């Protein structure tokens, strides 16, 4: 078990290389290309949601098809507190996360349901939040949406309102959340959660309050997705219900997390970068409408042939051809 505990905090060379590449190489190599940068930012946002989805699936053992609710609520809360109350943007980001946590607390009753019932209940919740955002128009602006959402400010002379600024914020948040995820997984709670994955009843017998732990994971996951929703809102400066609560905010992260391997920490993020880039550059060019079809096919293929992600599949192939 000690190896697993250290794995969360271990700083290996690949990780350092990736961080250096993320902060130093990518900005200088691609920083001038606005199109590529905007795609990388979008991919990182999806990677952040994929990370939060994978945390819930891996640690909590819960499959959520309602993460668009957390994403949308985070986006709306952050946008509204800046537009209506004048809260500074950098403070509004965590507030968006808190909003998503509140949304997850409303969902707590569904923790009484097991497995497939939970997945469907949370899907149903996502519908509710979209309807609320549309119908509660005195607060949310209704289907017309919220426009003029302030962008990121200039700090120490660096304008975070640019594509580069959004990229650095998104990258930092992904890394911070990945680190937090690793810490949770390595903690004693993480061990209890993984034991629950094998047998929830047995874990209860040895004195773990499984419901509280699952609820905590739901809240952590909601917070992460909400912060990324908020980030995205300040990055594109406009929100409408059909966009903020779009099913795409579930589909893309799920495909990304499964593609990269949802039981790993780096997998969902890497998966998001690969899947989103491929979707935008290749699939969208080939078929302008319905290119999500390819995402569905990818998801089905992954589950059938390599449910634990692409990495084991690659290893199997290289072992066979070595």
């Amino acid at each position, binding site marked *: 078990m000690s190896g697993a505990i250290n794995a969360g905090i271990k700083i290996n060379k690949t990780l350092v290389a990736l961080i250096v590449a993320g902060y130093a190489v990518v900005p200088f190599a691609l920083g001038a290309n606005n199109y590529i940068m905007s795609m990388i930012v979008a991919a990182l946002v999806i990677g952040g949601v994929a990370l939060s989805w994978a945390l819930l699936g891996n640690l909590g053992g819960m499959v959520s*098809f309602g993460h668009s609710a957390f994403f949308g609520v985070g986006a709306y809360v952050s946008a509204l507190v800046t537009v209506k109350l004048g809260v500074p943007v950098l403070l509004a980001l965590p507030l968006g996360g808190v909003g998503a946590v509140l949304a997850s607390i409303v969902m707590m*009753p569904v923790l009484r349901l097991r497995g497939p019932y939970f997945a469907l209940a949370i899907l*149903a919740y996502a*519908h509710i939040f979209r309807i609320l955002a549309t119908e509660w128009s005195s607060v949310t602006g209704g289907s017309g949406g919220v426009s003029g959402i302030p962008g990121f400010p200039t700090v120490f002379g660096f304008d975070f309102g640019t594509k580069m600024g959004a990229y650095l914020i998104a990258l930092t948040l992904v890394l911070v959340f990945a680190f937090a995820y690793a810490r949770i997984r390595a903690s004693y709670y993480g061990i209890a959660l993984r034991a629950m994955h094998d047998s929830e009843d047995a874990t209860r017998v040895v004195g773990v309050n499984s419901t509280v732990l699952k609820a905590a994971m739901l809240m952590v996951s909601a917070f992460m997705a909400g912060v990324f929703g908020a980030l995205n809102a300040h990055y594109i400066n406009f929100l409408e219900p059909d966009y903020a609560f779009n099913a795409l905010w579930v589909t893309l992260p799920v495909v990304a997390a499964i593609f990269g391997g949802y039981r790993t920490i780096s997998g969902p993020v890497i998966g998001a970068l690969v899947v989103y880039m491929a979707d935008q550059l290749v699939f969208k060019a080939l078929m302008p*409408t319905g290119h999500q079809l390819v995402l569905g096919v*990818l998801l089905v293929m992954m*589950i059938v042939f390599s449910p634990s992600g692409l990495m084991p599949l690659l290893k199997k192939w290289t072992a066979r051809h070595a």
Partner: protein
Amino acid sequence: MTELILQALYSGLLQGGSYALIALGLALVFGTMKVINLAHGELVLLAAYVAYAVESGLGLGSGFGPIFAIPIALVVVCIAAVSVYFVVSRIKIDREINSLILTYGIGVILTNLILLVWHADVRSTNSTWLQEAFVVGPFYSMRSELIFFGVSVALMGALWWWLARSWYGRAVRAVSSNRDAAELMGIDPGRTELVSFIVAGVLAAFAGVALFSYGVIQPAYGGALTVKAFIITVLAGVGSIPGVLLGAVLLGVAEALTVTLASSALQELAGMTLFLLVLFVMPNGLFGAARRRG
């Protein structure tokens, strides 16, 4: 006002027929395979679009287009359901989680196929015969609503007979209650699961054609249908056809009342409120035995 409410109750009752067919399909497959088919709503929607294609292809504006479409919808949806079965049955590890993600992916595929073939526009039937007013006492409905309510009730009767009396129906019940014991009794669980998928497909085909005959359809509707079917199974609890019909009618009535008394935009909230109420107050459903709680 009373008239409006009575009318809403009547419309909700008629709507409940197709809802019950959708929910029964979801419940049958869950019974045998312990898999929630998240693409079930999309299968229903596929049938609805087949009905649209047949109607617009035949050019029978005033005729029975959607009715003629039923055999074709049956074939198409059953082929789709069988394909779903063969993909789902390939899952060996972590079946519960993986089957959910898998059928979610199949749902995405079907939604986008429908989008590619029939585009994003909202569609409804052109058949004046089906849309003609049909008045029963003080109640008003479209002819199609009444026809398909009758069809739904007949199908549920047939399903009840099939489950209670036929060999495969008994096999489905046996596999649902204890898979290993059923296998020891000489029942092939794999084939029984396939049969349950096909029956779910048949029910979905009729429900889909019904939805097109009296309502509007669009490619994104499938997910909402799956959610509705799920809400009904929660309302009904596990295991009885009359329970599902009652749950479906309850959902239909709640939706119709919300549309009449509040606004059509809040229609989906009605179902959710019912769902949450039942979840809090009677977690085993209105008519079900204790089984689902964690």
